[in-house]
């Protein structure tokens, strides 16, 4: 499947996307003068602080975690909307972060696109749907002939299960789910191989979410797409992903095959998140409320950032920051207790 779509020169093995130790800090200090007068130091918010993962072609990797843990920041780093403070993004082995000239970047940019959470805000209300969808094609100068362009837009509308006639309408004439289809059609118009989807269904009702998730899976199969999928809904992530990275305060604390992660979560934070999910089957399991809250990212705890909420925390955790190591479920987990095998395997 991958063969036909691999451009000449690109390596055929190895992941399509590799993120290497990427970080992004935001300067949230007061203006310089105020800072000097009040004698305050510069304030850096480490939104993402050393995140690494690979995504093989045709697969889906998801990032989950509580609000503010840095998921969207990773997404924006990957598509180049933010420059990293350190680390790099490799696309087919090419370090995209190092490319600065438009002539080098454009051909690669065309091959990845982003879908955003809010289907209302992300479509220009004054443009016809046809022009919205054609915009990336025009921007990349991919098609000069207007007849061919129109045929391509018709094809894209059908691909996302809308009708060619819908192209003449404006975004406000569509429901949330239909707008998200339009966003997907637009993202697909430049024939990308890789889509970054930041909470694409979070603003939708479950029934509409089901339509969009089914569509995304169908498109992945039909077009051999690779996804970086971002969500805070663990059940959605379980449904869509091959692999899952759990984020906490700017880092990935556990990275595993989706099945393994949900069957045998290793990191205490992953366990806590899974225990907090409402029990739809009403097995009487009852969920365990999570203790405490996400700490202030401006003033993260010492050692393991999770230690104030962790039932397994000890002296070492408060002192020493854990690094990602292989864990029993085949995962990578950044936790001293997992490494020391201090935590019993989760059962049931």
């Amino acid at each position, binding site marked *: 499947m991958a063969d036909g779509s691999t451009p000449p020169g690109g390596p055929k093995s190895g992941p399509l996307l590799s993120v290497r130790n990427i970080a992004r800090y935001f300067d949230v200090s007061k203006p310089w003068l105020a800072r000097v007068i009040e004698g305050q130091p510069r304030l850096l918010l480490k939104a993402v602080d050393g995140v690494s993962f690979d995504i093989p072609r045709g697969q889906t990797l998801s990032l989950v975690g509580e*609000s503010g843990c840095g998921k969207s920041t990773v997404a924006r780093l990957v598509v180049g909307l933010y420059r990293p403070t350190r680390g790099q993004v490799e696309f087919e082995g090419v370090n995209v972060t190092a490319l600065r000239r438009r002539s080098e970047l454009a051909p690669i940019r065309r091959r990845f696109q982003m879908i955003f959470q809010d289907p209302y805000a992300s479509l220009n209300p004054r443009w016809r749907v046809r022009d919205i969808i054609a915009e990336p094609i025009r921007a990349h100068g991919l098609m000069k002939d207007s007849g061919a362009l129109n045929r391509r837009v018709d094809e894209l509308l059908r691909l996302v299960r809308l009708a060619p006639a819908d192209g003449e309408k404006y975004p406000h004439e569509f429901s949330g789910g239909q707008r998200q289809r339009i966003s997907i059609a637009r993202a697909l118009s430049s024939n990308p191989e890789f889509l970054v989807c930041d909470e694409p269904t979070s603003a939708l009702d479950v029934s509409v979410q089901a339509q969009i998730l089914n569509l995304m899976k169908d498109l992945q199969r039909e077009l051999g797409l690779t996804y970086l999928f971002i969500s805070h809904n663990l059940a959605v992530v379980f449904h869509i992903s091959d692999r899952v990275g759990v984020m906490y305060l700017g880092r990935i604390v556990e990275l595993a095959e989706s099945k393994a992660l949900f069957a045998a979560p290793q990191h205490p934070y992953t366990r806590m998140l899974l225990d907090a999910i*409402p029990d739809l089957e*009403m097995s009487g399991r009852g969920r365990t*409320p999570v203790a405490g*809250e996400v700490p202030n990212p401006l003033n993260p705890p010492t050692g393991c950032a999770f230690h104030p909420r962790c039932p397994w925390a000890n002296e070492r955790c408060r002192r020493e920051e854990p690094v990602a190591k292989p864990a029993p479920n085949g995962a990578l987990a950044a936790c001293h207790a997992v490494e020391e095998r201090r935590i019993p395997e989760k059962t049931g």
Partner: protein
Amino acid sequence: MTSTRANRPLLEVRNLRVEFPTRRGTLVAVDDVSFHIDAGEVLGVVGESGAGKSLTGAAIIGLLEPPGRIAGGEVRLEDKRIDNLSAEHLRRIRGRQIGAVFQDPLTSLDPLFTVGQQLVETIMTHLDLSEAQARSRAIELLREVGIPGAERRIDHYPHQFSGGMRQRVVIALALCAQPRLIIADEPTTALDVSIQAQIITLLKRLCREHGAAVMLVTHDMGVIAETADRVAVMYAGRIAEIGPVGEVIRKPRHPYTIGLMGSIPKLDRAVARLVQIEGAMPRLTAIPTGCAFNPRCPKVFERCRHERPDLMPVETNHAACWLHAPTLTEATRG
């Protein structure tokens, strides 16, 4: 779990109808909705956005935004009608007997006043207490909703709290006067699962300990599953199905509920594709005749297209669907 109905229910809604007069005619947003909630009971109300959940809640507490209005039916609280009271009278009932919690905790709190000032003012409006007494009651309430260090936090402003804590403060505010009925409209939708669990646990405990009746509006079935005693499923302004929560979730009788349940991704069952209900909920301007669900229904038959089904008993549940019509009725209608 199911409460007896020996006494009158705490809240009774009968044939409620909410309309919006517009230039192009009258829109019926809530149409012939009836249900009750007993003291100590949580009724979950679910449905897609636009189904009429929030308007039903707003109509009950008399907070419909004009030109929206109650155009029919009645609302009874402890057997007294409250849908025809003066605005002033209703306002007093709202604070005293009915507490409201909405989705966005920031809109319910005034950023210019400390949490304590807001709590004390509300308490003093409704209960006959001195300022000092009101303040200690406020601290007690904050403690009750699980705010650590309540004595100190009471003097903080809303923006100094996290989202989950703000929502707990809003719940404390709604509980100030120990209301008999709590209407919570998507109280956890803006929150992470971790914090969601805290809020739900809290709402349940309050319901149990204070014997309050809770109407919990949400589109999250998971939240309903673990919180509600009964659940009402709304579609296009009407109740499609209502029944004990376990029955509705595990054995839905209405084709819409069946589709809705199937469309939810589940952690304990991997499926290649989710059940998909084709199409979308109709707009208020174009509600199909007969059963409003008929253009999307996989089970649709002739009768559905021109006759509108009312709720009919199906074992433990009630479903508004012709599939469950007693054959007798069909025979008599010929």
